[in-house]
């Protein structure tokens, strides 16, 4: 029975995608119902998986799809962390997307590819071998491209073009890296770290650079982050789920896999690859925040903030200390929850009140209080305001940095927090305190649709608070990350 669950996890979004593609526009109601239904079923599956993995039973499905290479879907605790995050947030964003679009053109196509994206994201999470990971990693690019060019205007086409140039080049590098490593040590299975003893260090370093470079594109590390702000031309649900959570996390998740499951902690330390990566991540953190400060468009500011926040995860992963790993992993979840709230609120503001730039947000609090409240909580969380999610991950990253002998990490975190405050607080300040200057004033809950538009953001905002406050709870993301770190990597 256990082998079937990952397969089911794969087939559900596939069926949903096919249904979404097939149903004509006038049966949109049915399509929405199906999407939400499948999201719930998937959530139940995740619940079952949680119980299984907790009880220690291994859940995997293996099939040799290329001579010498297995297509392995295995749900280990790390995979479960990312899967739970993406499945839960997919449910939220589906509801949000339904409300956001209402009756637009090409929606069947949108929801079809939307489901394919989640299939790819789940696939990335529960892939057991390097080639399976690559397969879903590439599928993610293919599934997200149509969503970026969904509107079909010149801007989104240009964004799509840039997105493709970056991601396809990145995945080519990744493929080269994986295959080169396979040539040296045979096919790579994640939780069975290959013995890299007799492989020449130069080759290992080059392979590491190739793999991390390839993954770095999706994880928006500095030289390769160009596509993320451009991808903001896509509609809000896309930027919310994909460019804040699924796509960007796939890159970071991949890097965690490479560092801990392929190379292993001691090899990375021996080759001292950890520090340069940490340095690159830190540069990205600061650069991202600085560019966010200079942006005048709301979504681009959030995009640059994503660029910097994702590098927290990579920073944590590359510092190879117990606390740093926990910090990185837990930020994987926290950043997802916070950023999706921000994007959903930004989307709701843009959709209902036409707020595009920072100046338009004046007095938004008065006409859309709940959305603005959620936005404020998520923004405060990003800054690291204590009880919220951001603080927990910053705390672990900081102490982790100190623990693995890199005190400058604390300085980076401090500077980044200041920059975060510098570009988030004015937003909150304008929204709540300044009077409404431009644009329409609209009642927040005019129709049922509005409930579905605002509630998701509220739920995720509440999640930010709960995750932060209840951090020490066994089943909180922090508890889960600690368990992963202890069992998985730091015997």
């Amino acid at each position, binding site marked *: 029975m256990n082998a079937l669950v990952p397969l089911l996890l794969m087939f559900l979004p596939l069926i949903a995608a096919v249904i979404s593609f097939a149903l004509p526009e006038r049966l949109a109601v049915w399509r929405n119902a199906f999407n939400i239904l499948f999201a719930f079923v998937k959530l139940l599956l995740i619940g079952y998986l949680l119980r299984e993995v907790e009880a220690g039973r291994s859940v995997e499905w293996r099939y040799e799809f290329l001579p010498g290479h297995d297509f392995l879907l295995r749900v280990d605790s790390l995979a479960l962390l990312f899967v739970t995050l993406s499945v839960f947030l997919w449910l939220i964003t589906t509801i949000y997307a339904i409300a956001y679009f209402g009756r637009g053109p090409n929606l069947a196509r949108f929801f079809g590819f939307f489901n394919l994206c989640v299939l790819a994201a789940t696939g990335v999470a529960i892939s057991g071998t390097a080639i399976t990971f690559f397969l879903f990693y590439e599928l993610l690019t293919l599934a997200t491209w149509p969503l970026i060019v969904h509107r079909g205007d010149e801007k989104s086409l240009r964004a799509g073009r840039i997105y493709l140039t970056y991601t396809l080049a990145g995945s080519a590098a990744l493929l080269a890296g994986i295959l080169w490593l396979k040539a040296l040590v045979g096919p790579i299975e994640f939780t069975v770290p290959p013995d890299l003893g007799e492989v020449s260090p130069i080759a290992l370093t080059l392979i590491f650079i190739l793999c991390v470079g390839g993954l770095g594109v999706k994880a928006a590390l500095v030289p390769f982050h160009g596509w993320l702000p451009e991808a903001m031309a896509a509609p809000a649900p896309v930027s919310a789920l994909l460019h804040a959570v699924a796509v960007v996390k796939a890159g970071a998740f991949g890097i965690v896999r490479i560092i801990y499951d392929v190379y292993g902690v001691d090899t990375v330390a021996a080759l001292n690859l950890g520090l340069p990566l940490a340095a690159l991540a830190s540069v990205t953190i600061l650069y991202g925040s600085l560019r966010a400060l*200079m942006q005048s468009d709301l979504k681009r500011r959030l995009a640059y903030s994503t660029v910097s926040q994702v590098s927290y995860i990579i920073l944590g992963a590359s510092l190879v200390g117990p*606390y740093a790993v926990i910090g990185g992993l837990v930020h994987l979840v926290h950043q997802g929850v916070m950023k999706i709230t921000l994007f959903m609120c930004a989307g709701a503001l843009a959709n209902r009140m036409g707020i595009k730039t920072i100046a338009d947000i004046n007095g938004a609090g008065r006409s859309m209080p709940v959305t603005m409240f959620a936005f404020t909580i998520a923004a*405060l969380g990003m*800054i*690291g*305001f*204590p*009880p919220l999610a951001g*603080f*927990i991950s*910053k*705390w672990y990253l*900081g*102490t982790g940095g*100190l*623990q693995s002998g890199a005190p400058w990490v*604390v*300085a980076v*975190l*401090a500077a980044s*927090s*200041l920059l975060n*405050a510098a570009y988030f*607080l004015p937003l909150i*300040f304008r929204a709540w*305190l300044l009077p409404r200057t431009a644009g329409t004033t609209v009642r927040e809950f005019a129709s049922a649709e509005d409930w579905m538009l605002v509630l998701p953001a509220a739920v995720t905002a509440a999640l930010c608070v709960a995750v*932060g*406050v*209840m*951090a*020490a*709870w*066994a089943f*909180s993301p922090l508890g889960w990350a600690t368990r992963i770190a202890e069992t998985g990597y730091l015997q």
Partner: protein
Amino acid sequence: MTSESLLLPAAVAWPMLLALASLTPGFRSCLRAALPLAPLPALAAAFLAPREVLVNAPELLLGGGGLMLTDAGAVFLGAAAGLWFCAAIYAVRYMRDDAHPVSFALFWNLVLAGNLGVFMAADLASFYVFFALLSLMAYPLVIHDRKPASLRAGTVYIVLAVIGETALLVGFMLAAHVADGAIMIEEVRAALTASPTQPATLWFLIVGFGIKAGLMPLHVWLPVAHPAAPTPASAVLSGAIVKAGIFGLLMFLPLGATFEMVGSVLAFLGFAGLFAAALLGLAQTNAKTVLAYSTVSQMGLIVGVIGVAQAAGTPAASVLAAVALYALHHGLAKGALFLGVGLAQHTTGAWRWLVVMVLAAVALSVAGLPLTAGAMVKEVIKEPAGALGASLIGVSSLTSGLILARYLFVLPASATQTRPPLMLLAPTVALAVAALCAPWMVLTWSAATIDYEPSDLLSQVVDAWPLGFALILAGIVVLLRLKCPTLPEGDLLFLMRQGLLGANATLRRVGRFAQAMATPVAREQRTKQRGAAWLNYLDSLERAAQGQAAIGGLLLLVAAALGAALLYG
């Protein structure tokens, strides 16, 4: 977990509950009425709650944390709760026709919760949570009336508050690292005292708490922000919230160990602040600003004493009790004085003289008039301050006397009303009385830790010469109607603002320049010309490939090449 120990979490949870309640529309009407209820559980906790008992919630925050009341904490808690209670009653009447009641009630309660929580936190995480709640949620109070001036003040406040928060976060991380992962405050402090940490950890903590406590160079926001807030809020800001900074220093500085350099610098900054702030206060015209400067100077005194204790390595116990007592007295007194300003606006004639008399009594106590509680607490705090410190404290009564005289002089005249409303008068008087008697009561309770035997009356009077001199000076000024020079509200602030504006302008210019450089348009032209050259080469290659001659010729060429390769292969 006896019922009393439940008081601690209740003290914090109750105000938060009220804050949430103020958000629900139904509760709008009795919003302000509920304000005084908020600090009650905390007041009860200060007296009844068992000391040194950890009330922990394992799942919350970083796990293992919780609330615990220490003796000094109890004193601080009691003082703060009392002050909040009176200010709340005052606010009920004072904020009756306020434009933004919901925002005031919401943030008032949140700041209260933060303030109370800081004194009870047992672990780093909860301490940091309450401290952040306290400092960030106070911002809306500062800009409550939305006037441009208060908005500017608010900006300064929030910038420095955020910097303080970040410094504190870094300090806590370094401290936790020194205590290799432990997050309970005692363990952290023990680790700090035991191991010779490099001073960086301490400096971050000092900066973090210094900003809140108004330490000299970091005090710039205080004289600008406190007056901007509505009167009850200013009272609380100066009376209770500033004490959080002091409490933080007490909690985290390794008082047992001797840290020469850190201690002496702290002492110097403290005492410098004591005198400079007072003198700057004289040059102000707004009563609340004068009081704010007086707060800065008093806090300077306390920090100076802590600095000396840190340098000398005196054990923590004695310092804690003395500072707690002093803080108690200063909090209540400053609260009364602030409320007095609001009250003065509403009284004329005979009542006004009564109010002035009460305020004068409190002022004299703060200045250290012998036989008053002020003198007693000054005496008590001289003990850990060392010889130089004690004499400085003695002299300081001159400057504090002057500044308080200035305060009385610039008290705002009343517009119309003759009788002061009871709801405003009662809390001010209550606070004044509390300020004068509470220190004595606390002294008796904690006799074990503080041995204070009042010296005979004559020597006290002799020691009080600076105060006498100050009174004489004030008298002369009043008689000759001399005009004091006036300064803009924030002193250092003015310079910093110019610097900031300049930096911002250059940053924006750099940003525009980088943008221009990287525009893709320029790049595309360049590639176009270069590309055109080999494009037509490609076309000619294609035409040749399709040409007639290619048919046979190329085939034979390829065949020949293959043949050769086969031969020599």
